[in-house]
Structures are given as C-alpha cells and as structure tokens.
C-alpha cells in the first residue's frame, strides 16, 4: 500500500538547513499496523506528515496505492487524501465550534455525501465508539478520552484504507489510553491499515512492526507478535 524509497526532507530557516529525513525506505502492506518510534526531533512526525500527504518530500519517491504522491500539488493531494486517509492526533484537534456530531460529519460533507446518508454513517460510527449519547455536546464538554474517541470516529467515518495516528494516547491517562489502543486494534483487525507514531512502549506493542527512527534514518525494525485487543 505504501512504498517509500530514499525519501529526504529538509527544512530551511534563513541560514540553517536541517535535514529531517535522510534517505528513508519503508514499505507498508495493506492491513498492517506499524508503529514508528524514536526520540524527539528524529523526524517521526515529518515522516507521518508526508505519509499523510500533508507535506511533500524534498527528494525521493512516495507511492500510495499505486499513485506517486511526491510531486503533487496541494489541491491534488487533497483529492487523493479525501476518503482514503484518516487522522488521529495527540491533541485531538476537534473543531471547538462544532458539536460531536458535526465534527464527525465534516469529512462526509467534504465528500459531498447527502444528508441522510451522512446522518446514518455518523450515528453508526458514534455508536460504535460509544459516544452517541454525546452527539450534541461540544468538544470542551467532554473528557480527554471521549474527545479522542470522537476524533477516531471522525477518522474512520469515511472507511479510510489508512489511519495515521500521531501519539494518539499522548494526552490521555492510562485507562483511556488503553481504550483508544483497543479501538485502533479492532479497526486494524477489520482490515484498516494503521501507521502510528508513539513514544510509548506499551502502545508500540499493539503494532505488528516497530520502526525506530534516529536522526532522520530508520535504524532498526522489529516484528511484534500481534496482541489481541485488551479488555
């Protein structure tokens, strides 16, 4: 599904040029659950942004489901991203002015789905995330764990092929964290590919494969025995 070859990304600020990714090669198969780990500043988030098509690589090739993404313009990336990718962030990134329902509905609106269909899909995913009773609430009225469940609901409502999670449990306590990881595992078991950046050893154990990044390069790769969802 994802084929990354010799990927480089550099940032330039006035005088200094920083090489955030320096020749990354990565292949992710459909249905995989991959965790990316590494110390602060190693390029994890940059890599995830490129995989998520939020950013372009400076050099190298990135092939997503048969499409070369590397040189695409922003509007083209947006088109490719729509419906194919779901995002889960550490800080949830819900829109404060929208209710739970409306937040989850948003990607469907951008897909120009009709209203009845949207309602059905949103309610189904909210029920699945056990947050349907809160559909009319605003994000600030929810706990962190609830907010992240809404964020996951929003990420999966379009049935994406790939979910990108950037430290999804970073702002949560351990109980809520485990709950979120269980949800992701369930989704993965149903066939969704997941790429997750994490600092947490516990979380990395949910993944099939752990990639360690250091100074913009992959230093080690290890296979995990897939864990069953914890209850």
């Amino acid at each position, binding site marked *: 599904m994802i084929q990354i070859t010799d990927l480089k990304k550099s940032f330039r600020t006035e005088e200094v040029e920083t090489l955030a990714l320096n020749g990354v090669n990565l292949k992710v198969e459909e249905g995989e659950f991959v965790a990316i780990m590494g110390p602060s500043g190693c390029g994890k*988030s940059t890599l995830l942004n490129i995989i998520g098509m939020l950013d372009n690589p400076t050099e190298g090739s990135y092939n997503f489901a048969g499409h070369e993404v590397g040189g695409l313009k*922003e509007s083209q990336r*947006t088109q490719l991203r*729509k419906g194919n990718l779901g995002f889960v962030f550490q800080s949830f990134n819900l829109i404060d002015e929208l209710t739970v329902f*409306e937040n989850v509905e*948003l990607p469907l609106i951008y897909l120009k789905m009709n209203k009845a269909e949207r309602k059905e899909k949103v309610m189904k995913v909210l029920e699945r995330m056990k947050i349907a009773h809160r559909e009319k609430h605003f994000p600030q009225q929810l706990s962190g764990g609830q907010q992240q469940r809404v964020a996951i609901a*929003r990420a999966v409502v379009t049935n994406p092929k790939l979910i990108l999670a950037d430290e999804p449990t970073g702002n949560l306590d351990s109980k809520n964290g485990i709950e979120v990881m269980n949800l992701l595992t369930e989704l993965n078991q149903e066939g969704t590919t997941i790429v997750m950046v994490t600092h947490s050893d516990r979380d990395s154990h949910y993944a099939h494969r752990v990639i360690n990044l250091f100074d913009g390069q992959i230093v080690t790769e290890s296979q995990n025995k897939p864990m069953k969802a914890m209850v």
Partner: protein
Amino acid sequence: MFRNYIKIAFRSLWKNKGYSALNIFGLAIGITCASLILLWVEDEVNYDSVFPKQDLVYIVPTNQTFEGEVYTFYSTPGPLAKDLKDEIPEVTKSSTTWGGEILLSDGENGINRYGRYVSPDFLDIFSLNFLEGELKGALARPDGIILTQETAAALFGSDKKVLSRVIKVNDEYSFTVTGVVEDLPNNVTFGFNWLLPFERFQLGEEDMSWTEEYGNNFADTFVEIAPNSNFKEVDNKVRAIIASKMDSDNGIPNEAFLHSIKDWHLRSDFRGGKKVGGQITFVRLVAFIALIILLIACINFMNLSTARSGKRANEVGVRKVLGSSKKLLVSQFMMEALIMAGISALLSIVLLLVLLPLFNTLVEKQIELRLLEPVHIFSLLSITLVSGLLAGWYPALYLSSFRPGQVLKGNGKNQGSATIIRKGLVVTQFAASIVFIISSIIIYQQIQHVRARDVGYKKENLVNVSVSGNMVDKFYPIKEDLMASGAVENVALTNSYMLSSGNNGSGLSWQGGVNTEDVLVRFRYVSPSFFNTVGLDMVEGHGFNEDRAVDSTNVIITQSFADLMGDKSALGKTIMRNDINYNVIGVVKDYLYGDMYGNGKTGPVMFYNNYDGANAMYINIRPESSRTEALAMIEEILKEYNPAFPFEYRFENDMFNSRFRNEELIGELSKIFSLLAIIISCMGLLGLAAFTAEQRRKEIGVRKVLGSSITGIVGLLSKDFMRLVFMAIVIAIPIAWFFMQNWLESYAYRISINAWAFVIAGAIAIIIALLTICFQAINAARVNPVKSLRSE
C-alpha cells in the same frame, strides 16, 4: 456545506464575543458613516431634480468685465427674457424673476415669507403642480397670487378651499389667490413660498420704466429650450444678444449665456467667465472622506481577523486534513466576513435611524432613510457586500494558506509576513486618523481666524431689522422713541446690509483718477446717523447733515476710494455719476463686505445722504443694557408704528457667523470624522494589543521569572506599538500639510499652517494609543508567570 459555514461562523462569533463586538461595531461605524455621507451626497446630486424639464431649463447669468477682469453674475437686464424668446427660435419659454420677502396677511394673521415675482412662463418651465386653480392663466391678472401648500396652510389654517380668497400684502395691497402649488422639496436651489406677477415687483404704482432698459442688471432670467436643439448654437445666439441691444462704445459688452439648472447647485463657481466647479468639489471631498472611514473600518476587520488567526489555525489544519480544499476555506472565511458585514449593516441601520435627525440638524437638510426604495436598499447592500469582501479577502487568503502539518503541531506561529502587513495596516489607520485630527485643528484655527477678523465697524451690539410698512416714513419718530428708551445708542437706515456687496455700478469719473469708468463702485444710500450707528470711523471731513437737501450733491467715500483719487486729501474733490457732479465731504475707513475670506482690499464705496429706498434698519444697542430687555423695547416701539408686521431681527454678529456655514460644516464633519477614525483605529489597536499580549505570554512569563517588573513589561509591550504610532505621525504630517495648504489657498484671508497643529494632533494620537495599549499591557504583565509558562 453552506449551512455548515453559517453555523460555524455564528458559533465562532459568539464564542469570541469580545473580538466580534469590536469587529462588528467598528464595521458598523464605518457603514453608518458611509451611508450618512452617501445620503447627503444623494441629496446634493439630486438638487433641482424635482423639475421634470431640468434637461431643457437654463438659468441665464451674465459675464461682466471690470478693469479687465470678467465677473459672472446671475442678475440680468429686465427685457432679456422676452428678447431671448422673441429672437431665438429654440428658446420656447422664458421668465424674468425677482425674489424678496413680503408680509402676507389674512385678517389678523400675518406671516413674513420669501417668494418670487415671475413671468407666466415660469410656472410651465418648472412644471409646478397645482393643487388648486390651474397653471394656465394663474398669473394673468395683476392682482393674482400663487401660494405654496405650506404657505396657504400657515395663512388659512386647515382650510382646504383657499382659491379666490383675498389677502393683504405688506398690509397695503390686496391680492387674490389664483392657485395653490405643491411644496417643493428642500433640495432646490431656490425655493419660494409665493409667486406674484413680475410687473408687480414694486407692488405699488411706481415708475417701472427702468426695468425695461438693458443698462440695469437686477433680475434672474430662466429659459426653456426646445428638445433636440443644438446647445452650442443656442448658447452662441444667447451670448450675442446683449451686445446687439447696447451701444458698443461702452467698453466690453456684457455677455449672457446658458447655465443648465442641472449644474446650478453643484457647478456654479465662475472665474474669468468660465465654469470652475463649485459645491461639487466639496461633495467629492466628503464622499472621499467617507470612503476613507469605511476603509479604516475594513482595515480594522482585516487586522482583527488575522490577529486571531492563531486561534483559527487549528481549525484550518483540521479542515484541510479532512479534505477541504483551499478554495473551500477561502469561501468559508469570506462567508464569515460577509455575515459579520451583514450584522454590522443591520446594526448600522439602527444607528442610522438614531443618528439621522442629528445629522440633519448638522447639515441643515431633511434627509430620510427610505429603505424600501431600491436605490437605498441596493446602496446599503452594496456597501455591505463591498466592505465584507474588502475586509474578508486578506484574512481569508491568509488563514486558508496555513499548512496543516505545521499548525496542528502547534508551531504555526511564524507569521512573519502577516505581522508586517498587520503593522502596515495599523500604521495606515493611524496615519489616516492623524490626518483627520490635524485637518480638524487647522480648519478650526482658520474659522476662528476669520471670525476674529476686524470688519472695520462695530458689529457686536448691532441689530438689524428689515424695513417694512412705514418704517422709512416714520424713521425720525421711531429713532427718537428708540433712543429715548435708554437701551439704544443710535439708529440708522441703509439700502444695503453691511455684509452684502449690494448695489453697484461703473462708468463714474472723478478728479485725480485714470480709467475710472472701468472701476466697480458700490453705492450706499443711508441716513446721516449711519456712520455713528455702525461705528464706521471718519478719517477726514465730516458726516452728513440732518437736512438732506444740504447734501443733495455731497457724498462720503471710503478710504480705498479716496486712494483712487490721488495722494492728497480727497475732500472737496468731485465725482461724476450719471452726469451729476458730487462733492466729497468725508472719508471713512474701509470695511469688510462681500467675501469674508477676501484679501481685505474691498472695493470703493460711495455713500449718499438719502434713505428713501432703505431695506434695513440698524440699531446699536447700548453695551450696558440687557439684550433681552432692549429687544423687547425695540419690538414694542416698532409695533406701535408698524402694527401689522411681525417683529423680526437679526444680530449682525450672527449674520457674520452664518457666513461660515460651509466652513463650519467642514469643520464639524472633520471633527466627527477624526473622532470616528480614531475610535475605529483604537478598536483595532486594542485587538492587536490583546493578540500580541497573548502571543507573547510565554516571553512575558520568562521575563518575569528572570526578574522583570510589571512596568518593564508594559514598556516592552507598548514600545512596539508606539513605534507604529510614531511612524503614522511621520506619514500623516506631509499628507495633512498638503491637503490643508491646498484648502487654505482657496481663501485669501487665511492662517499660515502652524507646527502646533501637528504637535497637538500627534500628542492626541499618542495619548489615546498609549491608553489603549497600556490597558492590555498591564493585564498581560500581571498574569502569574507559572500560568503562562505551563501553557505550552
């Protein structure tokens, strides 16, 4: 999608009530201001548009040459109207007119009203709408009078049928009402309350033969030309007509020409016989200023919206991640701006309804907001749309360009270019405000300067009453009674108000002068008490004799006239006018009349000892007596001699001050504009200061931990903004200087621009800006650093 936008727009407005209020209120002020001005402009531009034939109707002014200079007057010879119609086929109708105030009375009920003596064509030229009687023949009988609806109501009360009723004019002459016409709106160049046949303009049976001569310019002439006629051709024929009627050896002949009544109000300044604009310049200036205010309000909006971008960045990121294109985001933010503009427009309608009466008082108009009228609703919508788009485009483009990869990680704060643009916007706003403040100060100084001008006579306690009834015949008894009352110093009669240029003529000759025929001389016919009453000092010689026969060939002249008669004393020299030699017996100081802004070189004036044709009685009240008591006394005495006439008086000082109405209007408007501009700008500054304080929370926290005092922090935050304000001052000064110098140059009597105006305006701007910023800065500086440092 739209619903989603609208929903989010309203929620985000509500969530940030403070910002929204600043934004909406600022924009509402801008829209209100622009709307008021546009209503005013509409009224100005539609002057005289009530006359359906305004494309065909022309007033006929004349160009007259004195000492090589061409001056343009509306006064024309009496027979001109008739000759234009008789001799130029394209001229289908013409009317001679003459305006004046008369007393109309129905029994005990008397009212003074201004109106016009006109020829019958007048009714048709201006398509007057008859409510009673009919246009045809309304002015056929010499004792017929046409009243406006309002005048008829004032005279006869609510009585609907007033046709054929007989009223008294000036308590002496009977006239029969032959028609009642619809009132004209306020924005006509000349209004009237009654119309009388032109041949009755002396009312009585006096010898009118002088009105049949081409040598006397006194009447206003109107013509209507046939549709589809060639203007240039007709105008050329009109220009030739006076020359064909007069002897050519009398110097350069006067030249009549066509002046469209569409230009009458806005483009009636003439210099050297050419149209050089007029009120239109003022209208354009005011419209331009309104635009600037609207622009300042829009800038405010942009500024506050982009300043809040930190808060919106996250949303932009999320939306992009979820599949929104940049285009969609731009339209979302534009939509928000338009919604804000819409709310502002609604608010400004309320403001308009509240402020319109005050505005009407200020500009002396009766403007109405007619929202149901397409023009008004369309204009308001356009202003709203334009300001929404103008205010929204920059924030929309700026916000929608955020890169989700950066903002969602919380490092979307490097807004380098936006900060520069935002600072630029603040500088622009403040510069515009400071230009307004400087202008207000200079306009105020100029008006004060002219008001304090020495007019050459003592106007402080001078009251004038227009002559009516038998005030001329009974002058001496009235004068004695008034002076015996103890409240009055002196009383005089004159044929001309002190301030007006009045009666004039040329073709005189005098001893010691060259080319004297070309000089325009003003004539004043006064009672001997005139000079003492108005306080015009005698330079040499003596005043008039109480026995007017003694002075039948004696005149008194002003200093500038004496100067034209050579270096030596003018006393005893002769002046010849209309083949009569007059002997100069006195010389008085020059005094100011006509243009109050002139260079002070008032033309020569010649006084006769003769008050038969007096128009005004001047009464000098003793400075020590109470004005109210004195006026009551004067009223009582005048009523005794003149019972039918209502007592109406004016203080000379008030008349003098009313000469500056246009300037005062500019002054008032510029004061209001500066106030609004500075308020809106400060709202922007307040928002920006709040934003900066928020953005620098961490820095402030660190500084406090390292030992900075609150004052130190306030200074730190204020410094940046003060730099902007100083920059604005530097930009504003040359602009204001340029505009004001230009404005002042239209006045011969003017101040020179003083550095103080700039210093004061700068100080005002700095103080107001400091107060605005300090409030925010102190708040920010007092935050416990523990809080701000934990926030990342």
